[in-house]
């Protein structure tokens, strides 16, 4: 009998040598081992995390380099033997054990492209139920679950679907937004690489719900591994006939992968739809909203990968099973992503209501550098900074907004005390300059002026006057930008100025190393 050994094929695990580790285990283990390439458990600081299946459960070792493999065999790791890299049973590691994994239930557990393992671990149950329901009932179930968009805006998914269902056009589209451009976020990537069928199932259910027969997944080009996995998964899914078949054998719900071309703004839904039509990703004025007039002018739903990936659970287990999690108007769970200078970086799926402190300090274990935390940027490049004294905030759409911050896509970037906040504010403006779609002046020109003004402040030129100019500029961008790119760029700038006013008073001494 060969022993099952799991070595992740998630891009983050590959980035620190998982392929070499798998090759070495195969070489030394021969036919004693059966290597399975799973997704990542999300404990990224332990990657490559190797797991061995034992009668007691899966035993974890990590971070394993190819140099460690020999000593693993010497300590009889195939029987779960003790080793300095050992962590005992994976599912008992507190970081993992204390999570509430609904959307990420299978990620890291199974081979992402093993459709039988998918089904054996709860997959397809949601679709099976949906196939017996009317479109109205499907939409109602999603509505009742309280699910809100995980792409940033937090709009109730069921309401959006209801609008699309009400349209009488014979052609409608269901689109997944996998542009995941926010720094500090990687949950879409991990879900697509670790459990691609869950996204497909969510889209097929959505297709039944709004009566669309065609779907597009728009994946950023920076994610070659995810693109490959999604394409293979669609092929496997369609070959199995899981979307049903027309008389000519073609799938009833046809899915396509489209690859972005390096433009952050293409994550904004109207820009994404323009890009899907082969055009410049320029933002469009709403209304009309995409649910009424979207891709090729047809009713179109755009949902984030995590939103759609949560749908199978909701259908399989019922709206109330999902809505039981969370707090206030933030229902269910959020896959938080711990990034930047963090000791235990990775993915933590928790019900809304968990505090920032718990995420960053209990799960994250503080900084990787060992230095004190200066601030956390929540919600990506357009999100605000939160200083440690605000870490008791409970994570939710409204609770964060009250702090002048936002949930965004659930990314948390940790900065240590050496961070120069004026430099970070300048970067926010620079990023807006680089990624602006160019449609409106406050964003296109304001970002350039903002950057120059911060340069002057940093150089100590007319500081008080320039701080005032910067404030005015932020007002203008917030009020007069067409979309959140220009409209929210002031958020990181302003929160940095508010929390660290001393750093906007002229040249700062480089912090001690």
């Amino acid at each position, binding site marked *: 009998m060969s022993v099952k050994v799991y070595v992740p094929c998630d891009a983050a695990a590959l980035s620190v040598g998982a392929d070499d580790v798998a090759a070495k285990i195969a070489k030394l283990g021969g036919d004693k081992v059966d290597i399975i390439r799973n997704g990542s458990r999300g404990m990224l600081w332990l990657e490559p995390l190797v797991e061995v299946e034992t009668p007691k459960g899966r035993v974890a070792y990590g971070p394993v380099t190819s140099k460690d493999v020999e000593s693993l065999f010497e300590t009889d790791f195939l029987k779960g033997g003790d080793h300095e890299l050992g962590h005992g049973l994976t599912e008992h590691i507190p970081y993992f054990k204390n999570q509430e994994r609904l959307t990420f239930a299978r990620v890291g557990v199974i081979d992402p492209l093993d459709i039988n393992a998918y089904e054996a671990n709860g997959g397809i149950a949601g679709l099976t139920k949906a196939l017996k329901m009317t479109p109205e009932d499907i939409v109602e179930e999603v509505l009742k679950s309280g699910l809100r968009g995980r792409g940033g805006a937090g709009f109730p998914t069921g309401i959006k679907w209801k609008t699309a269902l009400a349209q009488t056009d014979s052609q409608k589209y269901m689109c997944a937004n996998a542009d995941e451009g926010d720094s*500090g976020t990687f949950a879409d990537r991990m879900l697509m690489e670790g459990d691609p069928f869950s996204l497909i199932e969510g889209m097929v259910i959505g297709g039944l719900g709004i009566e669309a027969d065609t779907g597009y997944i728009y994946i950023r*080009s920076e994610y070659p591994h995810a693109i490959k996995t999604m394409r293979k998964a669609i092929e496997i899914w369609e070959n199995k006939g899981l979307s049903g078949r027309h008389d000519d054998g073609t799938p009833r719900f046809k899915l396509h992968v489209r690859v*972005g071309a390096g433009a952050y703004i293409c994550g904004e839904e109207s820009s994404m739809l323009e890009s899907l039509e*082969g055009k410049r990703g320029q933002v469009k004025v709403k209304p009309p909203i995409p649910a009424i007039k979207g891709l090729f002018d047809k009713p179109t739903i755009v949902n984030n990968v995590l939103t759609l990936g949560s749908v199978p659970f909701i259908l399989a287990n019922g709206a109330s099973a999902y809505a039981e999690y969370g707090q206030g108007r933030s229902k269910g769970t959020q896959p938080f992503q711990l990034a930047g*200078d963090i000791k235990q970086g990775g993915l933590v799926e928790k019900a809304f209501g968990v505090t920032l402190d718990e995420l960053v300090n209990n799960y994250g274990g503080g900084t990787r550098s060992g230095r004190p935390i200066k601030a956390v940027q929540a919600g990506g490049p357009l999100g605000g900074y939160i200083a440690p004294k605000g870490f008791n905030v409970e994570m939710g759409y409204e609770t964060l907004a009250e702090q002048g911050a936002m949930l965004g896509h659930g990314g948390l970037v940790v900065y240590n005390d050496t961070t120069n906040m004026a430099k*970070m504010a300048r970067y926010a403006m620079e*990023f807006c300059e680089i990624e602006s779609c160019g449609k409106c002046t406050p964003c296109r020109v304001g970002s350039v002026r903002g950057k120059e003004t911060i340069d002057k402040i940093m150089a100590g030129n007319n500081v008080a006057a320039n701080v005032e100019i910067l404030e005015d500029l932020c007002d203008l961008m917030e009020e007069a930008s067409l979309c959140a790119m220009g409209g929210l760029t002031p958020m990181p700038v302003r929160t940095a100025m508010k929390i660290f006013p001393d750093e906007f008073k002229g040249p700062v001494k480089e912090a001690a190393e």
Partner: protein
Amino acid sequence: MIALNEEPKLVTLINTTEDAFARQVCESYGDKAENLLEILHAVQYEHGFISDGALRTIAYQVNISRAEIHGVVSFYHDYKREKQARQTIKICRAEACQAVGVDSLIKEAEQNFDVKLDGGGKEIALQAAYCLGNCALGPAVMIDNELYGRVDIEKLKHISMKHREGSRS
């Protein structure tokens, strides 16, 4: 030369060389303008950049104006109009990688490879990326679509070399 047919549009295309590969790609995408991004990706993958000839051919095949295709190509950071270095190192300079010192890594890399970030290069070019989805294991780098994490200058030299050797063999 593009085969002549009765389309008057050809006047602008006369005297230009047709890119046979680009034409094939367009045909495989049904000569549809909605597939423009995919077509451009495929052509760039083959040639490393999008030449004037390729641009004209694609515009003709999918029936859009030269101005329109220029508009699309210039909008997206991925598409390159000039021949690229033999190796492009994409370094993430977004926030989470800044938090773990990518700015110093970029300086060291500029020195080591004797090029400037986004400044081109013949053998090696350093290109800024804005998040590679490896934000818990930064600094992150990508070469030939392969992702690397916790990169320091020594590791960068090593992987750059590894990929150059790999592409020669």
